[in-house]
């Protein structure tokens, strides 16, 4: 999203390139798990549908900064339950990552994306104050 949000040809192309690399890595991963030529296409299509479903489910809440809606979507997709213990923390991580990436310029995103390294385990009010991280403190 951060790359597409750049809204330049370079941003769009980079987003597409990253997506292509991801898809080919997934193909390799399936083959490494022993999935054969014939069924790999079917499995890829399933994973692709799952990915698009998730991207659609997450994009709205991410853009709106809606931690609660994002937590619900993550609970369903990641934890397979309507309510999950860690979904809120994961949602806050994702929103902080988005804030961090949004504060960086494009080249900094490419070199050292500031999605944050520390993942909270419990409520940590101080975490939010560090939502927009400086590039210096952010680790890729």
């Amino acid at each position, binding site marked *: 999203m951060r790359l597409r949000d750049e809204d330049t040809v370079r941003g769009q192309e980079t987003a597409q390139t*990253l*997506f292509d690399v991801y898809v080919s890595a997934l193909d390799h*991963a399936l083959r490494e798990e022993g999935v054969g030529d014939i069924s790999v296409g079917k499995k890829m299509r399933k994973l692709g549908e799952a990915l698009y479903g998730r991207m659609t489910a997450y994009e709205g809440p991410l853009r709106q900064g809606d931690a609660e809606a994002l937590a619900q979507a993550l609970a369903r997709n990641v934890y397979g339950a309507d309510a999950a213990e860690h979904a809120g923390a994961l949602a806050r*991580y994702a929103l902080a990552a988005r804030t961090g990436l949004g504060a960086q310029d494009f080249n900094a995103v490419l070199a050292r994306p500031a999605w944050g390294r520390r993942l909270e385990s419990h409520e940590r009010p101080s975490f939010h104050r560090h939502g927009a991280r400086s590039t210096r403190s952010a680790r890729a």
Partner: protein
Amino acid sequence: MLKHLFKTRPGGRIGDDLYALAVAQARNPAFYTRLGVEDRIDARSNSTPCTSCCW
């Protein structure tokens, strides 16, 4: 001409580099230990593509 043929495409390298960064981030053990993400291909693939594409 040969130089042109063997030139690395900058676009391709950016994709590989970013993907490597995204995977490194998605492999942060805290996702699986503290945040309870299951270590399965379809659960893991939430953190990898999402780290790379969603946010």
